[in-house]
């Protein structure tokens, strides 16, 4: 009986693609596109570019699948390609990205108290805005660490920089986010008290 688990489907899809069967690529895209686009979005900051980045990443999967070692996790390989492409886009743009405020408006949770909602909403809003202002290298590491849950070693390998640099950059990013959060929280507290 054929193993229908996602993992087995992924293995079969990789084998298919290695044989040149585009159905394999389609399966891989269906399995990974949502996370890929979301990851790219967090790095590059806008949806259209994120879709483009994800598209380019899957095209690279198509052209490079012969070099992929099936014994290694496909998602990690894909994310490495994806993140590197996102970094390339950022380097080409060399400008800070606008924050999509529309998406932030949908973050409130009606089940929570208004005060908690306000504080949590402000915190997440603030963090997202602050993430968008981080230098590209730090922003990428923040996404890898906090969205993809990468270890420092994995981050170092993905971004091809020393672990020490990863630590230092992540440290700097957290400081920036902490400072932004503290400032926003102070302002929010004042407003709520009023």
């Amino acid at each position, binding site marked *: 009986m054929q193993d229908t688990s996602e993992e087995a489907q992924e293995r079969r899809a990789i084998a298919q693609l290695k044989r040149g069967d585009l159905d394999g690529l389609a399966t891989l895209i269906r399995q990974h596109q949502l996370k890929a686009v979301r990851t790219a979005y*967090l790095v590059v900051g806008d949806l259209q570019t994120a*879709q483009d980045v*994800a598209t380019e990443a899957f095209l690279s999967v198509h052209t490079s699948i012969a070099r992929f070692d099936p014994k290694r996790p496909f998602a990690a390989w894909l994310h490495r390609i994806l993140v590197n492409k996102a970094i*390339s886009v950022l380097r080409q743009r060399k400008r800070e990205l606008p924050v999509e405020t529309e998406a932030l408006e949908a973050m409130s949770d009606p089940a929570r108290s208004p005060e908690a909602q306000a504080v949590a909403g402000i915190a997440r809003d603030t*963090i997202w805005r602050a993430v968008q202002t981080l230098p590209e290298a730090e922003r990428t590491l923040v996404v890898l660490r906090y969205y993809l849950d990468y270890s420092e070693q994995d981050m170092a390998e993905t*971004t091809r920089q020393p*672990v020490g640099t990863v630590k230092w950059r992540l440290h700097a990013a957290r*400081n920036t986010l902490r400072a932004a959060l503290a400032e926003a929280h102070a302002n929010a507290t004042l407003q709520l008290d009023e």
Partner: protein
Amino acid sequence: MKTMNFNSESDALDQLIQQALTDQAENAIRAPQDVLAAVMARIAAAPVTPAVAPPRASSWTGHLLVLWRNTASIGTIATIGAMLIGAFAILLLPQPGTVTPSPAALPAPARVFTPQPAPRSVESAAAPRTTTQPVATAAVMIVPSTPLPEVPQAKTTLTQTTDAAANVPFGATSMQAGGGGGFQRGIAWSPDGGRLLTSSPEGQLLLDADKLAVLRVYTAAQGSGQFSRDGRLHIDNGVELIIDPISGRVEQRNAAAPVNSVGISRPDAARMLALTATAIEVRNRASGAREFLIPLAAGHTVFARDAVALSADGRQLTYLDQALNRPVRLPIWDLERRVISRTIVSNLPPRADQPSLAVQVRFSDDGRRIALLHPTALEVFEVSSGRRVSQLALPAAGDLLGISTDGRRLLLRTFVGENEQLLLIDADAGNTRVLAETPGSHASSALAFSPDGRRLAVRRAASIELWDVAAARRTSTREMQPDEAASVLLTRADASVLTGYTGALGLRVFAPGEPLPERVIEAQGALQGFAVSHDGTRLALFDVDRGELRVLDTATLTVLHVISGVTSLPNDISALSPDGDQLLFATGAGMIQRQTLSSGARVMLSNTTPIAGGEPFLALFTVLHNDGAHWAFARAGVVTLMRGNRPVANIPADALQAPGAAPRNAPNDVTQLMFTPDGGSLLVADNRGAVHVLDLVNGARRATLRPDASALPLPATSPDLIFNTRFALSPDGQTLAVALTGAADATRGSLVTFALADGRQLAARTLAQDPLTQLVFARNGTQLVAARQDGGLVWIER
């Protein structure tokens, strides 16, 4: 009211960041996007070269498939359908990134042609009527040169790089070799035939053409490239980078407005052929000035990039002019005189049931011949006379991949079953022979004849091959492993600069300014974590795949010692004693170990906590003193100074700060250690941008060299500002150079030099926008070499 203390609750901060990113991503993107359709459309639009055989195109319908694969949108299929019922035979490809000029913004046309059979030609009085011919299918307008606003020129000192930040698929652009006429995509020869330039996911590779040895890697220069006649590399990646392979220096020019460039003239890369949705354009690459424009009539919106060609000297342009019930025509535009100097007409008769669908046109590099590829035939013409030199029937449909400089030899790719066949065609003799036949999974992605036409360079997905054309024999092959990481490490060893490439590229040892490596160490696995003894005679390399530290003699490149069970901590894993006999490294268990290589004696530091790969903000640096007795390491912001196996002092970075300094949120940390050559001091850099001079006897601080903020664009008040402080000591030990990279943009790439004797600040400058991560003095002490965060190296004159 509940409040949150974010400064002290780092776990809460981590959770908030995680939650914020997750919420943001999930709210912004609630459902899978249509990436699948976009990917498939792109695969159809651009014939990327997969590692498997593409569909066989063995008939004219096969070429329709090829054309469909060249089509950027499904909507264009309708155009092809319209063509089949006799509407038009010219196919045009709207390519991604196309810029459509506004007709209203164009100057008044000098002359206008309209399509047959009802031409509405209007010619200017100044135009030499005898040299102009009507164009059948497109409304053609010659526009006087209309310079666009000058693009500011910019120069950089970008040089050799090894970082592999982006992963550009090599094959994506390589199938279109015929389009530009002289613009060899994917792989190119230098004018003297001595070097090859090719692309990989690591960037542009410059190879010795005889040995296929990699000489340089330029990763900031992803994109297609070509050599100019002076031997310089021109790489177009949005900006134009001109790399001098001798000095390694790179000049950067801002590119013109983005257009769908399909060809570049070769002598000086001065002209660029571009397709827009409505026109064929020739532009000046440097200024962006539009020099020539052929607008297409309404409805003539398809033009395959292989259906237009620019001669190598940039002076002639042609394209496929096709229609039902008449042969294909090639109008040869003289771009200097701005006229159609001749129209070449195909000898293949038109067919009533289908368009005479030619698929590719290409000039030879000398501009004297032109090749016209049909689905099952090839014609070669002499441009000056229009005489047909050759006409050959082809066994199957193919792609024209190469044409020799003199146009006598042509290279065609076809597929026979699952195998790729490379056909070498002698146009003068009128014969065809199979040069190579390989499984489709190893299909070539780019080919280029050498300037003398005797050799052929073939780029495959994972290898580069050289072929002897006359003997139809492959003479050499080099396997590439472009998916592996690259890294760079600079250090001082017999005054050389070491540059490390991982994977199959091995380790190349370069002297500043020299194009050829002084030493070549082939890799057997991915290499990281270099360490070199002070006298440069010993080199330690970390083999990631095997978990081995290898110690080599740099003179003979022989492996002297192999140590197994080493953990992976890139770049900072090991240190060699000055005599190369003692090695410090972190073991697989995360313990710091000191090993005497000659005797095999090992000393494990048992009084320290094992180093964990995921340990937050851990720093490990190991340095051995000249006399071999002192050594030091740092982790978690504490420097440990050792003598023999005894600790001399533990020095927290906090204790090195100036008395009375305001407390800061970010913890003090150590970024680099080094012993002075006189053996008297330990230099410690901290994340505040300072370098401290410590006494070896007791670890007491003797002096602190702190950059004068007024000389640098440092923020006036920034209590939380931290730096990745890196420093280098001049060979005479007199000058200390400090590179500062801070989180704020303004502090990136700042360089400060000090006189070590009295701590005077000698100079301060800002070097580059990108952060500097490592710094060394070069051979003569007058040059500094800095490694940038993106992997690039910058040579700095003191």
